[in-house]
């Protein structure tokens, strides 16, 4: 009897809690609407920024449900998205980038957000290639969050000085500096040899060696002539040089470990995107001061960009008005400033003050403006911005094969890249 009454009591309590939560849900429903947001930003500054966005939407009366899925650099979140689509439980917005945005459009599940784009004048405030990347058949379906630059070279100034080397200005002076670092007994370049890291280095070398037109022809158009060209062979050759200045024992260590080595003076340089700044700041150094940032040197200048974005879906569990508000708020100057300052990127839209950003961010913005004018703005293939997963994977495979096989000639690597990319392209277009 006693047990039973306890049971009854707990049921009553449970029910009343349920009623209370249902009540608060009802109150939320009295708000202007809900949007569920699937993303893989689960840690550090990125997760905090999502909370900021959530708060900003709440102030406007919208409820943002933050469905963050950790792990796998986003691949887990993508798997969740697929299973949610299969079970007809679409999120209102999902973190999707690059050409995958257009791939999802073919499912007919994406939502048109031209209304927001028009009211915020996206075609004017967003850089041309970025704006185009957010569209399907001329309609906006996704909202960009930031602008990362890939082709950076991070240099520990005092280590360079100690080794008696000068700041590099072109390829030859870079190799000279690396040689001096090596003689001084310092690992010249910190690079883990993990394929993603090697591809990021390849990205930087490609734009510096071949320029924006070559880059676009090869990685965006997948032109077989450009992929198997002498220029591509030269890019591979330079990758071999870089590889020889890396610590072979560093194999398998993560990029942020490598950034740490540069900050601690155990290594001289690192080729990495500007998210490395977060790691530099964590180690109590200032990007642009102790650790210099410069565009990876070569014959050509350019800006290889990476943009995180969220694609909108027609979702039964999200309200259109809240989805619009999510897109609008994400591109608001206030959020753009807060988010990009924390993430190490620069605001993706015009009209945001860079006051308080570090020197490298200001440099990034300057180079970006110049690149946009000279048509030297290219989407990064190593960060999924230029090709879909299948083609990117095929290109990565060839780079990994070359990097780990000293007997493979640069010419053969370029040829193999052309044939593998072609096949993967064919397979992914069905």
């Amino acid at each position, binding site marked *: 009897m006693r047990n039973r009454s306890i049971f009854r009591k707990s049921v009553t309590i449970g029910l009343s809690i349920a009623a209370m939560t249902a009540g608060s849900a009802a109150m939320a429903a009295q708000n202007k609407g809900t949007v569920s947001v699937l993303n893989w930003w689960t840690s550090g500054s990125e997760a905090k920024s999502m909370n900021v966005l959530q708060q900003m939407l709440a102030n406007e009366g919208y409820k943002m449900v933050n469905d963050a899925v950790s792990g796998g650099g986003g691949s887990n979140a993508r798997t969740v998205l697929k299973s949610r689509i299969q079970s007809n439980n679409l999120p209102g917005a999902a973190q999707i980038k690059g050409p995958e945005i257009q791939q999802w459009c073919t499912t007919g599940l994406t939502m048109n957000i031209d209304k927001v784009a028009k009211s915020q004048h996206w075609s004017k405030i967003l850089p041309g290639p970025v704006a185009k990347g957010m569209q399907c058949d001329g309609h906006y379906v996704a909202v960009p969050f930031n602008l990362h630059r890939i082709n950076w070279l991070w240099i520990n100034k005092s280590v360079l000085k100690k080794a008696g080397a000068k700041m590099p200005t072109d390829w030859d002076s870079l190799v000279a500096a690396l040689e001096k670092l090596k003689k001084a007994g310092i690992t010249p370049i910190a690079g883990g040899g993990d394929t993603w890291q090697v591809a990021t280095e390849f990205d930087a070398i490609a734009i510096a060696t071949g320029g924006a037109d070559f880059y676009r022809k090869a990685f965006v158009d997948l032109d077989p002539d450009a992929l198997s060209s002498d220029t591509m062979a030269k890019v591979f050759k330079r990758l071999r040089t870089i590889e020889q200045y890396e610590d072979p024992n560093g194999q*398998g260590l993560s990029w942020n470990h490598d950034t740490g080595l540069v900050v601690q003076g155990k290594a001289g340089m690192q080729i990495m995107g500007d998210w490395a700044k977060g790691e530099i700041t964590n180690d109590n150094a200032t990007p642009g001061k102790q650790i210099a940032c410069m565009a990876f040197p070569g014959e050509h200048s350019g800006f290889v960009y990476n943009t995180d974005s969220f694609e909108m879906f027609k979702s039964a569990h999200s309200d259109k008005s809240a989805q619009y508000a999510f897109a609008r708020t994400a591109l608001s100057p206030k959020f753009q400033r807060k988010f990009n300052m924390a993430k190490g990127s620069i605001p993706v839209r015009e009209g945001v003050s860079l006051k308080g950003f570090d020197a490298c961010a200001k440099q990034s913005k300057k180079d970006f403006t110049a690149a946009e004018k000279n048509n030297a703005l290219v989407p990064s293939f190593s960060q999924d911005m230029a090709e879909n997963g299948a083609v990117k994977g095929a290109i990565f495979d060839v780079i990994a094969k070359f990097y780990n096989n000293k007997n493979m000639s640069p010419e053969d690597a370029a040829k193999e890249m052309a044939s593998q990319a072609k096949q993967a392209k064919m397979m992914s277009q*069905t």
Partner: protein
Amino acid sequence: MAESSPRAGKIAATPWRRRLDRWLPKVSLVPSGLASLIFVYGFIAWTIWLSLTNSTLLPTNNFAGLRQYKVLFQLDIWWVSVANLAIFGILYVAICLAIGLFLAIMLDQKIRAEGWLRTIYLYPLALSLVVTGVVWKWLLNPSLGLQHFVQSLGWTGFSFDWLINPHMAIYTVVIAAVWQASGFVTALFLAGLRGIDSSIIKAAQIDGASLPRVYLSIIIPSLRPVFFSAIILLVSLAIKSFDLVIALTNGGPGYSTWLPAIFMYDFGFNRGQIGLGAAAATLMMAAVALAMLPMLIAELKERRDGRSH
């Protein structure tokens, strides 16, 4: 019903109960039977079907024949994965069996502290493969682990850099996997050894057989069922191997330590080529079936023959 009603009373409960006794096990097996029908065989069928379609980002039902298999067979990375599985699988099973049998025979010599030793050998199995992978990753890292340690002891010429050598990295996976599983195989063999009738051994000794002779001709042959179950377990573990490689080498350097399971996952889920991933999965399943079938047949035949004698 009409027939049974006159004989009601005390007997009536019994047939009902007997019927219940007969049906209850079957009824209680139905849910798990249904579950495995759908979630094992149903999904196997679905995977095979997907491997015959041109599915990319999402599963589709557009029949594409054997196109995925054709492409799969042209991919260098697939053959690297298959070759790795062959190297890994053969060495893993063989070394685990050898170490397991050796340790079990040693433990069976009525030694002191057997309980302690058994526990120590069995402990690695309690660890998750991911933990094993991470520990060995640091142990085998040339500038942090074993090589560094031995060099710091004075042997400066010592080199052990398999982890970063694309040709040797797959052998580090073998080392870690063997470390993890050989204790378990030891336990299997030890149980088998304890099950052997000691009077046979005594009879052989009276007949003048030496100890190695007793082991080679009597004990090891009678461990046949243990070999059978150990090999089945190890082969299926080898073909499924995924987490250990991800934690130890992450497939690297490059893709030199990829296994078919990693191929399947990466192409199916990361690269948006579900059809190709399904083709790889189907071939993996076929490989398991091929590896198991002859052994199953042999074992069943043995049993039937054994009964007829």
